């Protein structure tokens, strides 16, 4: 896909794809995270020195704390459900104390994945059987905390699988027959999420949602209005206000700002309030 946004006289002129093709446009809107947009893609032609501000303001060490984990499974819902509980319809957590969650985070601070991770598990096929062959099931787990790097170096495949095993072991504690039901396992650490979905360090919010990176500070102070430092270049992804979580507000807000710059009437609803 795109490898750089050509830029002349402080204005974008289009995008260049990795295939070599160049597409001209007066306006380029990036739905990528801000680091991808400016440091990796646009950065190749050198943004103004003032952007991003001299120090990296998206704080790498905190970027990613989750891994995604998916397992195909056959028909039975294990121990926890016994086919009798509505629990299987919802998100399932095994973390019974705040202390366990906090300790899981302590591991992350030390640059390793949580030995006793916080698992956010769901079985989508309970409500949507079309996601698996008849009689089979599909389970998806969000797992925290999981650093993008392992003590500062890349994950190995063995470590990734080990991490997956940790999660399976935790689930199995509550669901003794769980391991026997697994047909296929896929573990995606921030490394895979970055490589496949293009999210820097696998951060699903395109940058941590902390006070210093929210509202007028999102993505960085001075550029919270969806406009980049280069004319015609806009941001519309989760790096921008208000942030990530399939909420679509950044996209709508960005569209409104672009239309304003184009002096076109805004066709984006201003208010979704109910009063």
């Amino acid at each position, binding site marked *: 896909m795109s490898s750089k946004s050509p830029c002349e006289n402080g204005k974008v002129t289009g995008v260049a794809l990795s295939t070599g093709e160049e597409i001209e446009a007066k306006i380029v809107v990036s739905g990528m995270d801000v680091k991808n947009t400016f440091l990796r893609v646009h950065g190749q032609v050198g943004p103004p020195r003032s952007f991003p501000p001299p120090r990296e*303001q998206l*704080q790498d060490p905190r970027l990613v704390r989750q891994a995604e984990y998916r397992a195909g499974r056959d028909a039975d819902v294990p121990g926890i459900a016994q086919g009798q509980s509505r629990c299987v319809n919802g998100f399932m957590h095994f973390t019974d104390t705040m202390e366990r969650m906090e*300790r899981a985070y302590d591991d992350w601070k030390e640059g390793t994945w949580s030995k006793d991770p916080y698992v956010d598990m769901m079985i989508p096929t309970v409500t949507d059987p079309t996601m698996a062959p008849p009689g089979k099931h599909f389970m998806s787990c969000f797992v925290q905390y999981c650093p993008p790097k392992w003590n500062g170096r890349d994950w190995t495949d063995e470590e990734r699988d080990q991490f997956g095993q940790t999660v399976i072991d935790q689930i199995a504690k509550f669901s003794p027959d769980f391991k026997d039901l697994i047909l296929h396992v896929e573990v995606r650490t921030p490394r895979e999420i970055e490589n496949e979905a293009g999210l820097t360090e696998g951060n699903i919010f395109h940058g941590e949602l902390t006070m210093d990176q929210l509202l007028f500070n999102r993505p960085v*102070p*001075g550029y919270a209005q969806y406009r980049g430092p280069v004319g015609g270049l806009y941001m519309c992804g989760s790096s921008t206000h208000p942030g990530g979580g399939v909420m679509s507000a950044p996209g709508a807000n960005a569209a409104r700002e672009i239309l304003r710059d184009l002096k076109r009437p805004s066709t984006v609803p201003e208010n979704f309030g109910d009063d």
Partner: protein
Amino acid sequence: MTEQFDAIVVGGGHNGLICATLLAQAGKDVLLLEANETVGGAAVTETFADDFRVSRCAHLLYGLQPDVARDLGISPRLASDNMATIALDTAGKHVRIDGARAGGVDSADQAELREFHAQMLKFSGLLRTLLNKTPPRLGSNRRQDLVALAQLGLRLRLLGKADMREFLRLIGMNIYDEVEERFGNPLLRGALSLDAVLGTHLGPRSPNTILTLLYRWSATGGRISSPAGGMGAISDALADGARRHGVDIRTRMKVKRIVVDNGRAAGVETEDGTTFDSLTVVSNADPKHTVMDLVGTRHVETGFARRIHNVRMQGNAAKLHLALDGLPTIKGLDKKDLSQRLVVAPDADYVERAFNPAKYGEYSPQPVIELTFPSLRDDSLAPAGKHVMSAIVQYAPHALRSGWSDETRAGFERVIMDKLAEYSPDLGKRVTDSELLAPVDIAQRFGMGGGHWHHGELTLDQFLFVRPVAGAAQYALPLEGLFLCGAGAHPGGDVSGAAGRNAARAILAREKSA
């Protein structure tokens, strides 16, 4: 016959003394009741071993607001001023921080520190203007609140665009990310992290630990000094001033309850059953103790009682005092260096790791320490040739899971001595006597709930407009005639005097407008 006063101040900490003095200056007949034998609260100099004296709780002076000192005419004689901070290294490659200058670090770090220091100074100056006045009531339409809020916004805007942005970015941020971004030298990172978390239940990665650092710097820009005669000298000066203005100070009078009559504060009753009448009662005690114990929740609104009940005030700092038969040695430091402020905080990660167990009710097996040898600067504290060490040690949670007992105190003291031995192998041999005050001891001795210096954690949800809680940030509690004047009120703790002075002003202004 019950004695009557215009105002009664409950508790003779420095804020209580200041508030009482200012009320007396305004012509009020003021009674101040103190549970202990001496006034001064956490700013006292006391004997902890035969012939050895020490600042028993707070041991360095950095927070006294210049405006307060000026208003009350206090200019404490200093045994030392502008102390350097020396971040200790086991190998003797210490880092010495003198304000904006750092020794023992590379030129990049030196440049970063200069920039960091200048920025922190600017922002702590802005904070100072906020601390020295009553916070405006949010959502109020009263003129004075709107004006104060507008002034606050204007002051922020006057910082200029870049600084305003940076201030708003930094205020909620943690110190860990900031020092990791800026500095290469781990000792420098550790020492600045320690400054940000001292006296709190926060680690360097906890939210708003830049705010706590700015708070610490707000009075004197981080300049640290030590009064001659210890911190008690400050309290003595304040008490003298109070008496001079006619404040009736009575010690060993522990207040049992604040008398509520027909829905308003009407006086106090002491443990021995004596009652004193006054339509103005000012509590220097922490907000929780004031409302939950002295007033009783039934006399305030439920929602308010719930907020007070939920104020977080878990103390984590222990105090270690050592009587020494001679000066210990630390590799790479001479006698003059030992009279500075020394810190054991070799890295920001170390400080964070020390904090981890505190979250789970355990003390740090590898603690962070701020230590001083005050007798080097002040020979009144120890016999000739002998010395005193005073150290603040973190983290030692108030609610220790195994409970604070002689055993656990001894265990923590061993941990501290082992840690100090890494830097000063001969320290242990010099010790003739020692005293460890765990947060429970500090709570009991100095009457601060949870043993928390600030009478309530310094976090954004308990700061400024919402300190100690929403609906009580203007010193008046929602019970007619009852006020707060201690560290639990805006702006917070340290020997700063801001809360006491702001409270007195708020009380007098309220009277005027009534």
